[in-house]
């Protein structure tokens, strides 16, 4: 009589032990689940801030380049440092951007140490006097418009002249039988390239040999622009002083700072060539 009773008790103990073990395992699962959840929250918000900083940085770069370009076209830059002033001091762009950015997010955005280099900028035809100096950079920003031709002649100090004719048929350009299928293209006649290389319909070496009429080791008296193509802009940079008082920003750089409670970020934006590629 005694033995079966004792066995029954033992069975009860084993059953209770098993249930206890099951609950312990369940407890571990719940706690582990909580840990994972907490980790997900902390990670997601930090990565979001990083993306935000990147967007702001890019947006600022884009704005600075556009300000420089608009100023070139409107003749806003009347002496060296006028671009820097417009961004950081009297022009209040930096202040205003800071205010708007602070209004939208808990972050401090700042542009500092803006540097710009100036060249000669023109939208008129005629001669650009380069004052017997070497030419580092000459970019023509052309629009096909209603068609026409632009002739560029570079007169060097040793009485040699080199030239190129850029012809527009109203929808594309042609340089010495090389087609460029683009409405709006930038021609660099120092290194003989255009901004959108995929629009070039011939071998890029052929285009380069026809378009590159300026030798950076030679000095030039003037560049003569003529023809009936309507819309264009030219920016020229010489190794000496700027050829005349038509200032145009052709190269700029700046420090961009982004600080929030999660991300602190400061970088020098890569030097950007206006009407050209970044360096």
């Amino acid at each position, binding site marked *: 009589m*005694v033995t079966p*009773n*004792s066995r029954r*008790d*033992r069975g*009860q*103990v084993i059953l*209770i*032990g098993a*249930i*206890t073990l099951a*609950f312990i395992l*369940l*407890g571990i699962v*719940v706690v582990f*689940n*909580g840990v994972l*959840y907490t980790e*997900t*929250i902390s990670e*997601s*918000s930090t*990565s*979001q801030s990083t*993306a*935000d900083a990147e*967007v*702001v940085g890019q*947006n600022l770069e884009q*704005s600075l380049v*556009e*300000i420089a370009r*608009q*100023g070139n*076209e*409107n003749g*806003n830059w009347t002496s060296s440092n006028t671009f820097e*002033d*417009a*961004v950081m001091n*009297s*022009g*209040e*762009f930096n202040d*205003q*951007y800071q*205010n*708007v*950015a602070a*209004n*939208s*997010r808990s972050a401090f955005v700042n542009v500092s140490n803006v540097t710009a280099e100036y060249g000669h900028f023109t939208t008129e035809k005629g001669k650009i006097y380069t004052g017997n100096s070497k030419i580092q950079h000459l970019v023509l920003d052309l629009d096909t418009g209603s068609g026409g031709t632009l002739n560029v002649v570079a007169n060097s100090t040793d009485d040699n002249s080199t030239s190129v004719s850029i012809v527009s048929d109203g929808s594309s350009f042609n340089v010495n039988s090389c087609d460029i299928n683009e409405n709006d293209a930038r021609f660099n006649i120092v290194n003989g390239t255009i901004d959108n290389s995929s629009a070039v319909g011939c071998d890029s070496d052929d285009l380069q040999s026809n378009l590159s009429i300026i030798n950076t080791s030679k000095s030039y008296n003037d560049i003569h622009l003529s023809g009936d193509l309507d819309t264009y802009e030219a920016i020229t940079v010489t190794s000496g002083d700027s050829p005349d008082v038509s200032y145009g920003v052709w190269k700029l750089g700046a420090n961009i700072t982004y600080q929030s409670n999660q991300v602190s970020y400061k970088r020098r934006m890569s030097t950007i060539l206006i009407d050209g590629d970044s360096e």
Partner: protein
Amino acid sequence: MSDQNSSNDDRGQAYTLEGFVSAMVVLMAVLFALQSVVITPTSGGLSDRSVQAQLQQEAQDALVVSDQEGNLTLSNTIRNWDATDDSGDKEQFYKASVPGPDGNLTYNTTEFKSQSKLGNILKQRFADNGYSYNVELIYETESNDFDTTYLVYQGAPSPDAVTASYVVTLYETDKLTATKSITLQKAHDNPKYDYPIPETTTTGPVYNVVEVRVIVW
């Protein structure tokens, strides 16, 4: 007798363990109940932090992408102001028809889709999936306060709404992109056109800096 005692000892041990297990059941129930308070909102809706982060990222990307898109950039969308005054009463964004909270007319999601790349992306991703959104323009006024104009207004956002914003710089030479191509300055100064964004900088080619804010919920 001793067998009887031994059996009673085992039974006492079993009762003790039963007591522990009962306590554990109750504690687990409490723990589970507490945990489920946190778990419930995360199991689907907007309150899930990762879903919110995802939505915010998508709204932010929509803004970035729409600023790169040819003739329908964000700047053009902001300048899409109807200056014909042919309606004879209200100045408004071009082809907007829904009264906004500030009295100006705003777009519904379909109208905004046909007028801008941003509207197209937002409609495809958010409106068609049952989300609501507001698109606001926030800019500095002449008195250095901030003012808001709405492009899309679908009501007051819920507490779990997410926000994405992008800053657009307007330039002095920029013109209205809708019916009449006049400069922003003229459109703002002439009471017939009443373009809401004023010029706030004194020098340089910059007209104003505008924040485009998308609120999704």
